[in-house]
């Protein structure tokens, strides 16, 4: 029997509880559950970080995150059903080690569960209007621009690679 697609997403201002996400996607018919948790790390691009402020265009962020989860449920569904997905992103000021994003997906098989989590995380970072301002150990604060030249993860212009 094909199970109904179930995706639940939220933009929240409280600590994330990965165990609650695992419980929310649990299903006796699911043999595979994947979980991603993104946490604030103590160094970014070589600079000591003490915390991060997360802000969002909340109405749009909630809508985009819900759309992404629905896309993942459809894209990675199989004859055994769609993956069940729960995704939450936290806003506010977070300290080192605190979780900013958590995504869980469960499916009868492991590939759809892991693929769904990967898709939601990657698309979230690409499309959901959330911004972060890092606090550095020297007291300065800066909005991160992942598209800036030289930012980690951005492509190096042709001919400039060392």
């Amino acid at each position, binding site marked *: 029997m094909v199970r109904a697609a179930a995706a639940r997403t939220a933009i929240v201002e409280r600590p994330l509880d990965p165990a609650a996400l695992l419980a929310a996607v649990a299903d006796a018919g699911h043999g595979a559950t994947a979980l991603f948790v993104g946490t604030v790390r103590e160094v970014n691009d070589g600079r000591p970080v003490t915390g991060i402020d997360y802000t*969002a*265009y909340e109405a*749009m962020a909630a809508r985009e995150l819900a759309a992404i989860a629905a896309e993942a449920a459809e894209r990675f569904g199989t004859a055994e059903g769609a993956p069940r997905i729960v995704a939450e992103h936290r806003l506010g000021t977070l300290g080192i080690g605190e979780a*900013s994003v958590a995504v869980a997906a469960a499916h009868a098989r492991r590939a759809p569960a892991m693929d769904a989590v990967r898709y939601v*995380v990657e698309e979230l970072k690409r499309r959901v*209007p*959330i*911004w972060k301002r890092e606090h550095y150990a020297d007291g300065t604060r800066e909005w991160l*621009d992942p598209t*800036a030249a030289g930012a980690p993860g951005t492509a190096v212009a042709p001919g400039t690679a060392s």
Partner: protein
Amino acid sequence: MSSQITVTTLLFASYADALGRSSVQVTLRAPATVGALLDHVRALPGAGRLPPAPLVAVNATYATPGHVLADGDEVALIPPVAGG
């Protein structure tokens, strides 16, 4: 005589810092596109720090510069997103 529309333009993160505010009401002569609104916003103090072609959403959905605005639309200038 031409009609006019008024749209609310939301600014976030580095863009809000650049213009020193989180929203601005803009009145434009109809018909007006997202591009026309951007031309208006670029003339505001501090807007020199905005990129040449910022991402824009109209009523919480990504839109192109050619998108025609309606009176009362909520337009957001979206800085490079950095969730996760």
